[in-house]
């Protein structure tokens, strides 16, 4: 990997130069407590130390609302509406969010890639930034606390500047074009970087092993925690829309008042809404709020085989932005047995029933 150092005094100049590569988006403070990625005019507004943005960086690639096609019913026309995507730079993406984008790629860029996502992904430049965890972060438990790839540049904070890791050809080009802004990495920088990383590793609230979480979740599907927590859940969907890896979407056709032309639009959807499991004929595969609540935990903590990680990156947004005060981490730790009152009072009958359930006379050796 190539390493260079960006001295502190050159930071704002570097940000200005980034604008040559496309529209610059970076985290800014949008209100007293919240941050978000917004387009930057004045680089002095960029926040380098923020805990989490209210909208994850997936919003640049998998847009909240996107027009897919325009149609005309009488003329049987059907046209895709992919507007010309200009290059853009997203600055200040934390390691957890970079992993989030990699996870989105495994779904959206598979054998039948989503064209709308692909075009934007190719035009986006990702510049990561290091961070100190707060009490809601748990990316160390998810193994997403250090990004190995998926970025063009990654800036690590040093007392007098940034240690920059170059992760792609575009990153090389950016550094080379502005080579006068960068310096060589010195031993002192390496020491500072090591200190920062060590301090960071200690600063996480929890240090444990979550390797068998997904099995415990499945075994404990009748734990009383699900009833208690889903009772206070508002089913508002905020956990899904702030999550960097949630990717469900709903499609709707809108017809104009001429009764002929119209467009097809897609928007982010949430599995907490009633219509997520609803099929024609009014059968709902997840009829109750508890089913939907539990489904989110099961889906989010399932195994992404391509990357060897779970779909959750440990950013803490679902806990931070939940209006009802439900803590994702506390609920998972209850299932793991790390919080008080973890063991259910009685063993439910579900587990024995779920064996070779449908033929009581069958034993394994007959098959």
């Amino acid at each position, binding site marked *: 990997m190539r390493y260079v150092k960006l001295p502190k005094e050159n930071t704002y100049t570097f940000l200005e130069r980034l604008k040559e590569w496309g529209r610059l988006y970076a985290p800014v403070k949008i209100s007293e407590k919240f941050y978000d990625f917004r387009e930057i005019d004045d680089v002095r507004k960029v926040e380098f130390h923020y805990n989490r943005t209210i909208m994850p960086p997936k919003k640049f690639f998998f847009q909240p609302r996107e027009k897919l096609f325009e149609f005309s019913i009488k003329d049987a026309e059907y046209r895709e509406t992919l507007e010309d995507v200009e290059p853009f730079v997203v600055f200040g993406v934390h390691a957890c969010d970079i992993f989030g984008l990699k996870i989105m790629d495994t779904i959206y860029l598979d054998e039948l890639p989503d064209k709308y996502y692909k075009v934007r992904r190719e035009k986006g430049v990702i510049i990561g930034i290091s961070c100190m965890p707060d009490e809601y972060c748990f990316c160390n438990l998810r193994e997403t606390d250090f990004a190995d790839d998926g970025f063009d540049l990654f800036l690590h904070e040093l007392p007098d500047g940034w240690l920059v890791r170059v992760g792609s050809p575009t990153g090389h080009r950016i550094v080379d074009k502005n080579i006068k802004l960068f310096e060589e990495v010195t031993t002192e920088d390496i020491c500072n970087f090591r200190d920062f990383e060590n301090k960071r590793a200690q600063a996480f609230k929890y240090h444990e092993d979550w390797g068998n979480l997904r*099995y415990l979740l499945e075994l404990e599907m009748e734990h009383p925690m699900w009833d208690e927590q889903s009772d206070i859940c508002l089913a508002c969907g905020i956990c899904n829309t702030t999550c960097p890896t949630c990717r469900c979407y709903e499609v709707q056709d809108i017809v104009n008042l001429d009764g002929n032309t119209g467009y097809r639009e897609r928007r982010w959807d949430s599995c907490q809404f009633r219509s997520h499991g609803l099929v024609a004929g009014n059968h709902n595969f997840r009829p109750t709020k508890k089913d939907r609540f539990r489904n989110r935990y099961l889906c989010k903590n*399932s195994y992404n085989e391509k990357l060897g990680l779970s779909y959750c990156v440990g950013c803490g947004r679902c806990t931070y932005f939940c209006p009802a005060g439900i803590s994702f981490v506390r609920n998972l730790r209850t299932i793991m047995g790390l919080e008080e009152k973890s063991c259910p009072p009685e063993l439910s009958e579900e587990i024995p029933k779920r064996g070779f359930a*449908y033929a009581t006379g069958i034993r394994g050796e007959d098959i």
Partner: protein
Amino acid sequence: MSENPYLSYDARILEVKDLTPREKLFTLRFVDPEVGENFSFKPGQFVIVDVRGFGEFPISICSSPTRKGYIQLCIRKVGRMTKFIHRMKEGEIVGIRGPYGNGFPMERMEGSNLVLVAGGLGMAPLRSVLWYAIDSGKYEHIWLFYGTKAYEDLLFRDEIVHLLKHGNAMNCSVKLAYEIESPSCIYLERGFSDRVCKGVVTDLFRGEEFDVENTYALICGPPVMYKFVIRELSNRRLSPGRIYMTLERRMRCGIGKCGHCIVGTSTSIKYVCKDGPVFTYWDALSTRGLI
């Protein structure tokens, strides 16, 4: 420029046939002949039907791939989009994209017996299997157990009755079950008393013997039906790897992106459109919530 997987291709409706008061059979051909040439599918796969102005919905293909030049879809009128499509006439255009899904593994089952168990609208994808098996002739004996609420709900009635009468020549045994009596089914019952009875589809298993080493079972029906049919099959010692089921869920994309069709739990999350819609009973045992 890359391909857009959500783009649907125009298909013209060649024929609309009423099967029952609620279901219609649509025969479609692609407007662009090249698209029609390149469209090859396996029994059990589905397409997404795109009604411009309304939306899209998934429907399994009910014609066999051995009959080329057209595809047939059996559509029940249940909601907004299907109500509109029922009003469409011959010559009109809808959008089709597909085929999606994994389909039934017909090559693996060659040379074996097939037991097709259908409930109500579940006959649609199994009809594709049925005619593929009969046309290709590569299978031993084919049983079709078809249960409906009433004789009037029987899909593909002429074909089924034809097979009831002349099926033996094609190595095919058909048995029917109905829940509500009517003059037509009493007449059928009298003519084929060993093969038509009042009851549910599991009653049709009575008295049937299968060579479990050389038989595969294919099931399709309403969600509540699967457990009972599997119990019958398991009681006859049919291995779970030989029991195939095709399932449905809400789908918006058909290619594993919109996330509505997810089933399972944290150890076994699956997309019914990409990893299915055909699953074996082993999948059902390891994926809670599948059936």
